[in-house]
């Protein structure tokens, strides 16, 4: 009972400490919240003249997401094969799982920063960032799917004398195909959003446009971009959920 009370006090103290550290008790900063009024006023009405620019940036975003999803999916599939308990010897499996885990520790936006530095601003860096992020994420999901293929199916296919590659081709891939496709679709949906975010560090797409609009204080254009983007993301989510529910359950 006493120990619990100490914990509560400790957490409370930590909480207020974090607020203080982040400027919540600084009156001049808190007063800046008033800026929300002029900011919102500056956004209205949304600027329609920017529409063509927004649409072409969204188009670029979707293209980035698509390319990155497919490349990441392909790489993820290859790494998953070497990470599968059923297909790879233990040391190889451990090595590739570690590689995938390392890739996953780096978020998409950091990949984007890395590739913007290497390859310069623009969608090229964005696609590479999405690719890496997707590889780490799908690689893990794919090897888990491989390893959960029914042991009976595997025993039976092994039982005819099939080699490991043959087991992959005739049992493991077909048995996990639905899951793989469904995850690809899901991550594409996710990557459309991620492509927007990576744009904020300059890696192309609508995020890049949003960054430019913020920097040049064009808030009414910003609102147009946000509204269109919102509608677009919702539409893609909706369609993707429908497809997944219909074909891959």
């Amino acid at each position, binding site marked *: 009972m006493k120990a619990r009370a100490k914990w509560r006090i400790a957490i409370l103290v930590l909480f207020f400490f974090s607020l203080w550290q982040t400027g919540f008790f600084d009156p001049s900063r808190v007063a800046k919240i008033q800026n929300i009024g002029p900011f919102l006023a500056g956004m209205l009405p949304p600027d329609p003249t920017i529409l063509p620019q927004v649409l072409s940036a969204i188009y670029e975003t979707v293209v980035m997401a698509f390319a990155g999803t497919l490349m990441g999916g392909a790489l993820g599939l290859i790494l998953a094969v070497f990470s599968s308990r059923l297909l790879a010897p233990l040391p190889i499996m451990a090595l590739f799982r570690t590689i995938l885990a390392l890739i996953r520790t780096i978020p998409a936006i950091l990949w984007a920063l890395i590739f913007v530095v290497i390859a310069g601003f623009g969608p090229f860096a964005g696609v590479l960032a999405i690719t890496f992020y997707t590889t780490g994420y799908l690689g893990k999901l794919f090897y888990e799917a491989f390893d959960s293929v*029914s042991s*009976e*199916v*595997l*025993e*039976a*296919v092994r*039982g*005819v*004398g*099939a*080699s490991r*590659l*043959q087991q992959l*081709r*005739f*049992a493991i891939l*077909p*048995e996990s*195909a*639905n899951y793989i496709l469904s995850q690809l679709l899901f991550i594409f949906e996710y990557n459309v959003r991620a492509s927007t975010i990576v744009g904020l560090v300059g890696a192309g797409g609508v995020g890049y446009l949003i960054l430019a609009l913020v920097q040049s204080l064009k808030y009414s254009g910003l609102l147009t971009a946000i509204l269109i983007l919102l509608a677009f993301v919702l539409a893609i989510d909706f369609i993707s959920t429908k497809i997944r529910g219909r074909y891959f359950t």
Partner: protein
Amino acid sequence: MSSILEARNVWFTYDSRNYTLKDISLSIEAGKMYMVFGRSGAGKTTLLKILKGILKPSRGVVLFNGRPTTSIDTAKRAYSVIGYIPQGFGIVSNISVLDNVLVGALSRVPLLHSILGQFPKEERDRAEEILEIMGLAQFKYQKVSQLSGGQRQRVAIARALMQKPQIILADEFVSQLDPVTAIEVLDVFRRLADERGIATVITSHDIHLASRYADKVLVLRDGEFKLCRDGRSVSESDLIAAMRETFLESSR
């Protein structure tokens, strides 16, 4: 008649404390049909896995054509001519019936060709012929997930046949079927035994069909054979009696 496959004084344990199989000896001869009965947990599946070579005996030996399968060569040869159909049939649901049957030929097809799905013409012809025999010809391009339980079972038999087997081991093969389909499937096995000399070992807990089909009826109880008789000389009450004592013993 000499035996193709023989288990000699086989003991098996999963956990190195309790023996799941105790001193099992069984000789499998060409063209004969064996039915192994036993209650749940008696060790039927374990016995089939030992015969197939998926599990290695803890003590005792399995002989293939008189040679111990402890030699890798012999084990490999045995493995490739023993068809094994697990309890749930183990067919791949997302590929076509024809592809499932062709899987049975994988050990004979060069790796690259098989990966590209290019099976030699004689293998394709053979698969078509087997599908015809099993009454599956009209389903050959359908996905297995669209078939009924009985049809899936026939796909599993077809795949095993594609292996050019000398023995087919089938786990719980008739337990999940309606009586009419069960009889049809057993007829198929009887014909395979009589016409092609393929030995079949079927495990089951459904005793009604035993005497009509099996050359040899065995009852496994707590990992031991409690009865081993000519199929035609066994009555249902013999089987029930042999299977039953476990229950009495364990309820004491």
